[in-house]
């Protein structure tokens, strides 16, 4: 009697093992779900950075386009995080459809990821929209999403510039005039010191994201450059006295106690709770700052270096498509056209702080025109748009590691361990050896 129970137990265990091995089977995703084409939209808009606007736009699109369903997915750690996720997803064969790509990843994405050639796709599959890009975008804005050899790999979407946010209440306490914010970096240094001495509140913070955008604005506005092309090869160019002087200005502020060197979230938290006078970060944070601060948030354009030309890299993102099959590509294009329509762009700019890439949005009475007239902060940002340059993007397989080296040297310079000149020189050599 007992022996058959034993055999039964052994058979059950054997079957369980087989089931375990089998349960890893991949459920192949269906392209259409009852006639609907499902596409994925990857973005970096967290709750405090336009997340609600993204959800609204997606819901609106899904309602007005019943044959397409867009699923949005948030990627933490900004464009670096999104590119990492994208690369990992493509390595496992599961690519998203529409993606917000950061400008500084232009070259890396063009060289390493299999993207859909949008102009080619338009010509072949949606010829009615042949003139869409030329009609609606200025050539220098379109150029932001082109590689060095002129390939249009995406459609510009969000444009941001670095600006100087400040707290008028802290200014008044320190004896500074809130209607007359610092216009040059020398004035910023003086103001920060005055704030610290008169009120004890920290004076200035420059964003420290996992990229070098704001630092590039600082360096290039002083006449320095991030990258240069020598004999067809890209090399580090930030090893110059102009770059070192600009960076040293920041380091000196941290050294004399009027500048903050901390993580981004700490800096922004401090600003919003009134413990920091000035923050230099992206205009894309405007909507969130205005909503969360207990004081009236005021914005000044990015300060200049006396006698030098202002140069700010365009931040934000452009839209790329990675769909493989026809139906998904067409659906992705429909979605992109919707996102780039004046009404949707106005909504996006209102909910974030990004500036629209298309000219007609500013004149559009339905949306952005009124907002611009009422919001001085947006005007301050728009005034720097003529000075837009490309966000420096490190090419090649080691581009991402080169970017990390610049991030590391920022910590070294701001903590005072080395002077800017020494640190930039060492890093330039390191970067050149791996590029």
């Amino acid at each position, binding site marked *: 009697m007992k022996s058959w129970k034993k055999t039964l*137990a052994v058979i059950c265990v054997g079957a369980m093992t087989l089931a375990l091995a089998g349960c890893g089977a991949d459920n192949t995703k269906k392209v259409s779900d009852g006639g609907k084409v499902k596409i994925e939209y990857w973005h970096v808009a967290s709750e405090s950075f336009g997340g609600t606007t993204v959800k609204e736009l997606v819901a609106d699109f899904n309602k007005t386009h019943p044959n397409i369903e867009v699923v949005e997915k948030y990627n933490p750690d900004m464009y670096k995080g999104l590119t990492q996720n994208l690369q990992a997803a493509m390595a496992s064969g599961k690519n998203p459809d529409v993606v917000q790509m950061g400008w500084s990843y232009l070259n890396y994405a063009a060289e*390493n990821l299999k993207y859909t050639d949008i102009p080619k796709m338009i010509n072949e599959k949606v010829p009615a929209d042949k003139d869409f890009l030329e009609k609606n975008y200025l050539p220098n804005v379109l150029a932001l999403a082109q590689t060095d050899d002129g390939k249009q790999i995406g459609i510009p979407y969000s444009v941001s510039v670095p600006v100087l946010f400040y707290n008028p209440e802290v200014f008044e306490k320190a004896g500074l005039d809130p209607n007359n914010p610092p216009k040059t970096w020398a004035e910023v240094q003086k103001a920060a010191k005055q704030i610290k001495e008169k009120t004890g509140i920290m004076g200035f913070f420059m964003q420290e994201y996992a990229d070098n955008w704001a630092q590039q604005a600082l360096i290039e506005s002083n006449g320095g450059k991030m990258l240069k092309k020598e004999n067809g090869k890209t090399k580090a160019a930030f090893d110059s006295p102009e770059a070192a002087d600009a960076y040293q200005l920041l380091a000196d502020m941290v050294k004399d106690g009027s500048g903050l060197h901390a*993580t981004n979230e700490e800096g922004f*938290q*401090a600003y919003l709770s009134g413990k920091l006078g000035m923050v230099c970060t992206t205009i894309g944070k405007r909507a969130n700052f205005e909503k969360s601060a207990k004081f009236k948030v005021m914005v000044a354009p990015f300060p200049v270096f006396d006698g030098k030309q202002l140069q700010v890299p365009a931040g934000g993102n452009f839209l790329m498509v990675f769909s493989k099959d026809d139906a998904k590509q067409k659906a992705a294009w429909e979605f992109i056209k919707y996102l780039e329509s004046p009404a949707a762009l106005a909504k996006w700019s209102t909910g974030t702080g990004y500036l629209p890439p298309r000219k007609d949005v500013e004149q559009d009475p339905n949306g952005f025109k009124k907002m611009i007239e009422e919001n001085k902060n947006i005007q301050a940002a728009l005034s720097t748009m003529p000075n837009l340059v490309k966000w420096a993007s490190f090419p090649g397989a080691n581009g*991402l590691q080169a970017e990390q080296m610049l991030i590391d040297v920022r910590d070294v310079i701001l*903590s005072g361990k080395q002077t800017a000149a020494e640190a930039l020189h060492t890093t330039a050599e390191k970067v050149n050896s791996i590029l």
Partner: protein
Amino acid sequence: MQKARIPALFFLLPAAVIFLIFFYWPLAQNLYLSFFQWNMVSPQMKFVGIANYLEVLGSMELLKNLGNTLMFIIVLLILNFLLPYLYSYILGHLVKKYNFFYRSALFLPSTISLAVASILFLWIYNPLAGPLSIILSGFGLESPRWFKENILVIIALSTIIGWKVFGYNLIVMLAAMVAVPKEMIEAAKLENASDWLIFKKIILPMTAPTAVYVFTITVVFGLQYVLVPVNMLTQGGPDQGSSNLVYIVYQYGFIFFQTGKAAAFAILTMLAYGAFLLLKNKYLDKRIHYEN
């Protein structure tokens, strides 16, 4: 006796299959990857032999990471091994009332996810607006930049892990404490032994097996836990100051997409841990008195 062999093998099969598929197969794949240069998406993998290993072994990064790893381990041992040991002795033998309250209160942080804990502590350590800085300013001190200074960052990150894992280790040690035969302790008390003497001569040897377990998991899992706060708060910074043997694998693999080098780091890390376990077996396990 022979007949019992075949069913026995069948019973072992599920566990063996899981081990093979999820532990040994990836290990073999990792070893294979470490001899190539590949960015995870390109269809070509370039064979480079032991070049990855040579680069890794000759780099300054390895030294810095080893140093950071050691520092992490020391701080984590204090927070997750020594402290729970002491607390469990106090809770198990010295505190008579409200034991249940202490146990629950101290275990509660373990239930919160590490990501949430990281954000919480980011706020607590905020040098201008956080609670800690307010307390320090009450004493007239300015708060250090916890996440931007080399040694402080390791301490700050370890406190996050300590806060979370302390409860679990405490409960495990408490179980061992409570299992110490009461007669021994009462006999020692009759002879007027101090609490410290009781701890040293009775508790320590009797709870040694569990203590070695907690010691081992603190070292082995500590760095893996630390990956979450490091990834969320400092990304290995400042200037690789919080990067460690486990994080460097992640950084090379998923931030730089240099999988060959990441795999080489991973193999070296595994060897380092293997050496640790060998030493532990040789020196610690011999001195433990197991019940049977």
